């Protein structure tokens, strides 16, 4: 009943007045965003502004204290079954890859589809190989993560997230831990993914990527969305002084 009020027929993620505190410190202040299916939203902002915390609230890796988050029509609350259902629909890629070092690349990718989606091994492995082909490293299937380069590991992490066939992908600075020559291979995969119509929320400092791929750019500062708009608007004619300052430092 409450959901009906704020639910836009089309939005796949609806955040309304989301607030979050770590102890006394308020990290998110009245964040309200709606993300449409197939939209690519890039989140930028200075370090410590709450970008990671925000996207981690969307799949409940962090708990928000006030406001509402509705994902794919399900409200993110204390209900365990809702949380599980929402997590199934959201894939996440971390800055530090977080691959499971005791499992092979193939096992990393097939784990969740088999355990959570209850696919057969055959189906999961076929899907995994398909995804490995898509990210360009099918030959690494039986290696352990420790034997791969950083860029390869992050591509495996993307494949692992995609294996669950999520409706939404969250990326938290996916290229920040990579050597410069590996950044491109990861960004290429992400571009291809965006073109295929995936709904994506990407926290990144890669302005080139934002300009080229994003449908919308959000600028975070001190837990607030200070400014948002299309990349063209954002990079050419941003209004807010904080945005200008930030852009001047980064570009």
């Amino acid at each position: 009943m409450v959901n009906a009020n704020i639910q836009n027929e089309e939005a796949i993620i609806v955040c309304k007045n989301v607030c979050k505190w770590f102890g006394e410190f308020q990290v998110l202040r009245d964040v309200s965003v709606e993300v449409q299916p197939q939209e690519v939203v890039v989140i930028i902002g200075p370090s410590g502004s709450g970008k990671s915390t925000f996207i981690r609230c969307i799949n409940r890796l962090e708990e928000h204290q006030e406001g509402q988050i509705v994902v794919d029509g399900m409200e993110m609350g204390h209900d365990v079954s809702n949380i599980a259902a929402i997590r199934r629909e959201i894939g996440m890629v971390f800055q530090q890859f977080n691959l499971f070092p005791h499992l092979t690349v193939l096992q990393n990718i097939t784990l969740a589809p088999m355990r959570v989606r209850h696919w057969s091994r055959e189906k999961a492995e076929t899907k995994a190989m398909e995804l490995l082909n898509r990210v360009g490293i099918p030959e690494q299937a039986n290696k352990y993560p420790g034997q791969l380069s950083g860029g390869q590991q992050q591509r495996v992490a993307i494949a692992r997230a995609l294996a669950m066939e999520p409706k939404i992908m969250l990326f938290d600075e996916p290229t920040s831990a990579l050597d410069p020559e590996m950044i491109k291979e990861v960004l290429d995969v992400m571009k291809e993914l965006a073109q295929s119509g995936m709904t994506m929320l990407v926290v990144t400092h890669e302005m080139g990527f934002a300009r080229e791929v994003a449908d919308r750019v959000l600028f975070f500062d001190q837990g607030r969305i200070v400014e948002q708009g299309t990349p063209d608007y954002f990079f050419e004619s941003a209004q807010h002084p904080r945005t200008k300052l930030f852009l001047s430092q980064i570009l």
Partner: protein
Amino acid sequence: MSATQHQPSSIPSFLRDVRFLQVIGQIVFAILVVFVVSRIMTDVFAALQKNNLTPNLAFLQNRAGFDISNSPSWYTSNSSYGTAFQVGLVNTLRVVSVGLVLSTLLGILIGVFLLSRNWLVRTISRVYVELLRNTPLLLQLFVWYFIVMLSLPIFREAYTFPPEGVAHIPIRIAFYGILILVIWWRTRRWEIGSFRRNAIISGVAAMLVMIEIGFWLYNNQPSWQSVYANGDMTSSSFLLYAVISAVLIVGAWFVPIQWRGLTLGSSIGQAIGGLLVYFGIIPNSAFRIEIYPAFYASIRGFAFPELLTTARFAEWMAFVGLGIVLAIAQWVYFGRITETTGKPIPRGWYALLAVVIFAIVGWVVVGSEPAPVSIPVLQEDQTVYMPLEEARAGNLLTIQDELQYNPSPLIFRLPERTNFKFIVGTEIQPEYMALLLGLVVYTSAFIAEIVRAGIQAVPYGQLEAARAMGLTNSQTLRLIILPQALRVIIPPLGNQYLNLSKNSSLAIAIAYADLFLITTTIMNQSGQSVTGMVMVMLTYLIISLIIAAGSNWINRRFQLVTR
């Protein structure tokens, strides 16, 4: 930097060769070791020979001539020293093997508590670990034995559990259980949210508790009956009850939201419960159950029920074995199905079910095989034949007869005692208990730290990645955390196992007849102290080597999985 550095030195070149010097060093050292050891050996042998104590193993055949506390039936004081040594070994293994298992379980539990998010649990377990790690084990053993065990009551006044007597279980209790289960089950389907579900379940539970309190007050506490008891409630106490209920219900709205359902439900429930008792709506009839103690604790030890296997046990085991085979087959089969179709099957439960069904069927089949019409028993020194029941009624059956003729595969017997000992039951000595508790509690503190460190060694990102993929908590623990934590945990855990096995020799301080205590007695009695010492050392060495080999083996398996 000049040429002076390259001038040939006066020492011959081979003496400056590292490889040569290394070899020479090794040889000199080896020679010295051999020399020292042989010198010590000759001296010791000479001294012993002078005292007619030349070390040899022949003395192991001599009569021991001392008793051993709680020794197995194959040992008497007429047995040989060798047999006494074996008793010691068995006793040591008895405490070490059980100790390893229990300290691991307790250690894992405490280790997890150390990481608990609950402040109280975390602090208590931290204090537990620090207290135990930083006090000497010997002191702890003294506390367990001289303070805890020796302050248990004397044999005749043993603590018993459950206390002997008659219990009246109200019939309604059974319905309460069913009611709660049904509500819990039904509300799962209702999709009414956890708030309302909490409210309903806690409300019903509080109501039931209130009903029981009402009965209890009515039956046992005449002075309190004015509040809830049938009939006698004065208007003022009814008012009091009503006010309390009202305050609770209203107060529930001021409780933080996540507890509100719980509080509100229980307030309303208890109010209804009070009324139900007040108007005498719930009947008070009960089962009468005679209770005999199953557990005794006294300064002479602990006694538990015993489980004996009869002549038909093997037959029954055949059924159970069949069940196990089927369970395994089923396990493998369902595993394949899950692999190919992805359909999750609770194959663990199915396997258990298979075993249980076969066990029950086997029990019925084996138990219903016809028993001999009459059996031979000894009556007034004469063998007479009579039916089993009659013999049992006449108290003519020995335990051997029972084991041979009783139709059920297992006999479960509660402890029975005379004035100064148990004639039925499994007994545990206080010395064994004190040593076991001391070792387990002490070692568990170290294991807890190892487990904590092992779990903390798994980066938090692993947990987040698993959660983000939608794995459940138990899947995360089983598939992600444990395999990585075990890698870190196993090597130091093996060390703790070694420590435990060696620490068990402190048994001598609290009179548990372990390997070391018995060998001490043997050495004093026979004078063969050198031989005895060597035997003890070798035995502990072998035990240690076995444990080390085991933990290395497991360690290798886990390392293999990682890379």
